[in-house]
């Protein structure tokens, strides 16, 4: 009896494996490229830290967005090059001078519990994002999208149902803007404006994002979430385009230390991890197919404190220029960072869409010329051996920032005899100190909120809340204000960069790249998407 049942079980198991194996074999070709697919379609990647939230409307985190793009689907998506393509919306049209947008939603989109995805879900989610009761840290995104009544709802002046969004019928979603916004549709790829399932949120409250509660409409559904350890998402059978999805399962593992993460990547536990600073060239040489570097929309700079609390020396443009010229950006990029980063002579990264890198003069000099010019400028300003320049250089604690600051300070000391005293601070203390203009020279970095130069250049305008150096130039302010509504902006942006090069309120140091290790059997990574908005359903694993 016992023997038979064991035998039965064993043979049942064999049959089951054979069937699964058979099924996998039947689909073993990539439908487009014809590559042979691996049997195990699980993608595992490293996260730096636990995900703060998986509520689309509350999320403000980049790695959170990566997961949310898999779990939910908004009106539009991005393709591998960052172009906006249809998502839940099949098509859209603008009317009334680009202030009204009407989205036609596909009728086969479903939630993971089988409910249809309708325009009402979008109305609910967008109102929820703006509602003061939700208290989303990203609620300003609704305001940024220029949706009618957005800022009033945010301020609690009018009720959320007055927001300029409307479900004309189940499959028609209409948005009214307060002013025309050229890149409005592109902004709907963002997680803040993903639809959410009202009945689920009302039933479970804050707990609705638990795997057992969550109802989502993306290509994957959440099956596991252990805060500081892992998340798992698996194929959502209800997704309208489920047949095109190849990866079955995506796992994230939280690994704080990037060196340990690399070890575990080497041990085969991960498919993707970030490359620790300085290790890219070696890894590229050793594993040319698996080490990748690609441009990102972020800059890295040091800002002078130009406010009244800043040092007198920095009020002199010659001092600012001298310090900026003496930074050998090639050394920073090639010897310190070594991840294919781009030396920065402009504030805006060259990879930004529609931005022509202007020809600022100091970019064209050799470093020797820049150094000579720097010495000359500093001497003119009255600083030298008898009157040495000395200031504090503030950065937040991090291995990478420390290396860059150390190298820059050494360059200044050696070339100009300037003494920059390094001062590191813990993150929040740093932010508070910098935000209160309680510094002399401070590190800064900015990643674009969207792929357009104004996301960077707005930082150097007088009213910007992010302008910690308190730089102020009337012409810059005017150009940037005009750019909001103008269709041809590139001349204006070039002019702003020219002014920045002349007045040097910040020292641009480099423009980011993403540097990562990716197992070579994982295909479909959108390296051409500078915002790095990737979707697991476009990835696949080939058989080795």
């Amino acid at each position: 009896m016992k023997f038979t049942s064991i035998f039965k079980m064993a043979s049942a198991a064999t049959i089951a494996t054979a069937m699964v194996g058979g099924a996998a074999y039947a689909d073993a070709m990539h439908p487009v490229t014809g590559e042979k697919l691996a049997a195990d379609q699980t993608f595992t990647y490293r996260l730096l830290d636990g995900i703060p939230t998986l509520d689309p409307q509350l999320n403000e985190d980049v790695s959170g967005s990566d997961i949310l793009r898999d779990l939910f689907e908004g009106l539009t998506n991005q393709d591998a090059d960052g172009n906006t393509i249809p998502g839940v919306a099949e098509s859209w049209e603008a009317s009334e001078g680009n202030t009204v947008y009407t989205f036609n939603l596909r009728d086969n989109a479903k939630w993971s519990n089988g409910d249809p995805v309708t325009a009402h879900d979008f109305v609910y989610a967008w109102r929820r994002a703006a509602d003061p009761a939700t208290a989303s840290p990203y609620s300003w995104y609704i305001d940024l999208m220029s949706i009618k009544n957005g800022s009033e709802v945010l301020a609690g002046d009018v009720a959320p149902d007055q927001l300029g969004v409307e479900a004309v019928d189940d499959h028609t979603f209409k948005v009214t803007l307060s002013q025309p916004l050229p890149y409005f549709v592109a902004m709907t790829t963002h997680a803040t404006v993903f639809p959410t399932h009202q009945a689920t949120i009302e039933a479970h409250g804050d707990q609705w994002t638990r795997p057992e509660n969550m109802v989502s409409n993306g290509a994957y559904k959440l099956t596991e979430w252990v805060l500081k350890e892992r998340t798992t998402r698996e194929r959502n059978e209800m997704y309208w385009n489920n047949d095109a999805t190849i990866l079955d399962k995506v796992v994230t593992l939280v690994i704080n230390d990037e060196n340990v993460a690399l070890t575990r990547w080497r041990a085969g536990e991960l498919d993707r991890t970030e490359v620790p600073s300085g290790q890219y060239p070696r890894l590229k040489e050793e594993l040319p197919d698996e080490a990748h570097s690609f441009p990102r929309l972020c800059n890295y700079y040091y800002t002078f404190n130009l406010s009244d609390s800043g040092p007198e020396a920095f009020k002199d443009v010659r001092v600012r220029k001298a310090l900026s010229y003496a930074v050998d950006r090639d050394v920073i990029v090639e010897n310190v960072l070594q991840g294919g980063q781009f030396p920065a002579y402009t504030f805006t990264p060259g990879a930004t869409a529609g931005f022509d890198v202007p020809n600022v003069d100091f970019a064209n000099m050799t470093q020797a010329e820049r150094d000579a010019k720097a010495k000359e400028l500093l001497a003119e300003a009255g600083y030298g051996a008898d009157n040495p320049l000395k200031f504090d250089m503030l950065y937040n604690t991090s291995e990478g920032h420390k290396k860059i600051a150390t190298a820059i300070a050494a360059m200044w000391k050696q070339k100009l005899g300037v003494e920059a005293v390094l001062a590191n601070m813990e993150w929040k203390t740093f932010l508070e100190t910098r935000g209160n203009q309680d510094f002399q020279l401070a590190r800064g970095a900015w990643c674009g909120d969207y792929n357009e130069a104004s996301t960077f250049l707005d930082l150097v305008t007088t009213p910007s809340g992010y302008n910690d150096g308190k730089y102020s130039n009337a012409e810059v302010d005017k150009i940037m204000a005009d750019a909001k509504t103008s269709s041809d902006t590139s001349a204006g942006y070039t002019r702003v960069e020219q002014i920045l090069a002349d007045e040097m309120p910040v020292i641009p140091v480099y423009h980011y790249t993403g540097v990562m290790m990716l197992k070579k059997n994982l295909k479909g990574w959108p390296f051409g998407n500078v915002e790095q908005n990737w979707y697991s359903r476009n990835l696949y694993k080939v058989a080795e």
Partner: protein
Amino acid sequence: MLVSKEKMAGVVDAVSNNKEIEGRSLWQDAIGRFQRNKAAVVSVFVLAFMVIWSFIGPALSPWSYEEIDWNVIGNAAAAGFPSLETGHFFGTDDLGRDIYARTLQGTQISLLVGLVGTAVAVIIGVLFGATAGYVGGRVDNYMMRFVDFLMSIPYMFILIILFVMFGRSLWLLFAGLGAFAWMDMARIVRGQTLSIKNKEYIEASVAAGVGGFTIIMRHVLPNLLGIVAVYTTLLIPGLIMTESFISFLGLGVQEPLTSWGALISDGAKTIQYGTPWQLLFPLGFFIVGLFCFYFIGDGLRDALDPKDR
């Protein structure tokens, strides 16, 4: 009963008659015993050598602790290995800074942090613990609840606030480290004191009318020295390593200055990238230091153990 009475009488005699003279000869005895402990004596010399080297050693190197070797920066694995030719005796770090000069500079900082921080912790801990244990009762209870409280507060915030209030300084680092390392010591000392104070010779001293403070200093503390010496040698490496963690808050040692903890932690991060010297040289210094402290602690313990007389 009779025996113990006799003993007590004897101790009372000893206590009341020979205090001064015996006190001095005790120390001389201790020094003598310490000198006979070869490992301890060698350790003292090694430590002294390390300190001297850390001051004069940098003069032997063409590189200072903060100078960047622009030929090596970013290529430490291939060009920054230890070599007499390049003058980088211990190799360089990833930025091309000389590990030899940096280790020696870090030695100064770390020994200072270890010794001063530990001294602060030991003095507070021993006095606090001995007082609580000896006085006992309600005072002991309050004092020990205070220790419970201090053990539990989120001390990172204390350090952040100290930093914001007083700015960056090495003395603040000592205070911050020492002030939060003494609680375990206090508990251990108190426990021992509780047991010591019931011993016959203390009871005898009390009977002879010796004051509380005198008893603590003269009879309780000497009996605590063994455990204090051992715990101190455990504390020193702990504090030396904690320093590197605290500098993350911005307190204390600031680049380009460095310390053993900072060097070891940097070296450990790059251990898989072909630059083992970044870890091994500072770690070597740390280990040698650790052994020295251990043997000195052990020697002190043996030398000061009153029962060995």
